[in-house]
């Protein structure tokens, strides 16, 4: 973890730009590739995400999580916004093209960040169908309705699986100060 890059960006140090791209470029690019429909979309999305990073670096607070979680949150927000604007358009790529994307085991995820390891441990505890619902939503960008149709599950079940799964991850990340329980 090296939050000093974000601090340097926030202080307006142009020399930090290359370091920032080297440090987070692969992460942002991988998220963009998963949640966009074409390579061209992914490139546009990556540029928009980095614009958000340049603007938002000053808001990074290490007490709220690692720099990589901060970057992933910025990226996901932007990608979700983009997905919503294209939701009415037919998908350009079949889902099968993304089938190789999956969760890492906790040991591998630990190489990315502590939070990634915690999330991987939480995910490993979920029932396979619950894990699959989260995988389709988080990694492949499918909507709850699309997941319900694909897995032939009631929409309410999909919602419940997602809620419990996210709460479980949240618990592993010790983010439960506000009292959310996985029993909900």
């Amino acid at each position, binding site marked *: 973890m090296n939050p000093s890059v974000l601090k340097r960006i926030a202080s*307006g140090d142009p020399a930090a730009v290359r370091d920032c791209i080297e440090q987070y470029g*692969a992460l*942002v690019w991988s998220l963009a590739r998963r949640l966009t429909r074409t390579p061209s979309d992914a490139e546009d999305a990556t540029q928009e995400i980095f614009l958000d990073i340049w603007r938002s670096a000053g808001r990074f607070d290490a007490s709220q999580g690692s720099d990589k979680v901060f970057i*992933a949150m910025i990226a996901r927000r932007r990608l979700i916004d983009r997905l919503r604007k294209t939701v009415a358009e037919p998908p350009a790529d079949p889902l099968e093209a993304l089938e190789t994307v999956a969760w890492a085991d906790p040991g591998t995820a630990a190489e990315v*960040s502590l939070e990634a390891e915690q*999330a991987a441990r939480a995910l490993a505890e979920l029932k396979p169908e619950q894990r699959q619902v989260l995988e389709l939503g988080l990694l492949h960008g499918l909507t709850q309705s699309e997941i319900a149709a694909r897995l032939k599950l009631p929409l309410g079940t999909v919602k419940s699986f997602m809620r419990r799964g996210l709460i479980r991850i949240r618990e592993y990340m010790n983010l439960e100060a506000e009292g*959310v329980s996985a029993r909900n």
Partner: protein
Amino acid sequence: MSETSAPEQPDEATMDLLVKRAIEGLSPAEQRALDVEDRAAVSAYLADFERAAAAAALAASAGAEAPPPALVARLERQGRELLAPNLLQLKAVPGATAAAPPAKSPGPAYGWFAAAACLLLAVFGWLRSPPPQAPAELAEAGRPPVTAIAPPAAPKAPTLQEARAALLARAGSLKLTWGATKDALAAGVAGDVVWDPETQQGFMRFVNLPTNDPHQHQYQLWIFDAARDKRYPVDGGVFDVPAGSTEVLVPIHAALPVSAARAFAVTVEKPGGVVVSAREHILVLAQAS
């Protein structure tokens, strides 16, 4: 299991909305439903769910490939331009003249109501024809000094005014005049936009654009590129007008390359800006002939 409750846990339906927002986003109707809930609880739980979703995404990112070199080059250029002296943070320069009192910013409800009244006209004006009102040209005499929205300049860095003048002097640069819509916030707003297609740099100049509270709303520029789908103009950056400013200069930071700028528009958006404007609160437009 911890059951502390500060803030109070939302009900199950709200929790479902929070989870959905963190994973796939909400429709406008769903977002409105969430907006009426307890703001503190919603913010706290949403932030945690977004962190959890981000961590789960990280757990699948080991061994991720680097972006293509050409994209990396564009990212570096974009970042350096944005972080260059004078162009990062938008603040009033010391000693900025506080001339005419800034217009009162209406609350969000008023803003959206007012926007609804002019929405159709503005959008049609945006897409089909010149703006409905010709802007009043700035009368140079008697104007207070320009407020440059930028941090104090480095000792030898050009000021925004100097950078704008240099851009204007470049062959091929555009200078378009803002036209105000009938939006209440746009009353009396004038100025221009300068854009250089080659360097992809530009500046907006506004006179009488009301001061905004960045915690309530921010201004956002949109650039319509003839080479792109007109439904999705390029994000030209989010900016604020500090208190005490009657004339401001704002550098443009296009999120994406603009091949052929044909129009510029400024909207009022939520803090931080948006990816796609609902175009419900358009203030000014500038169109190339």
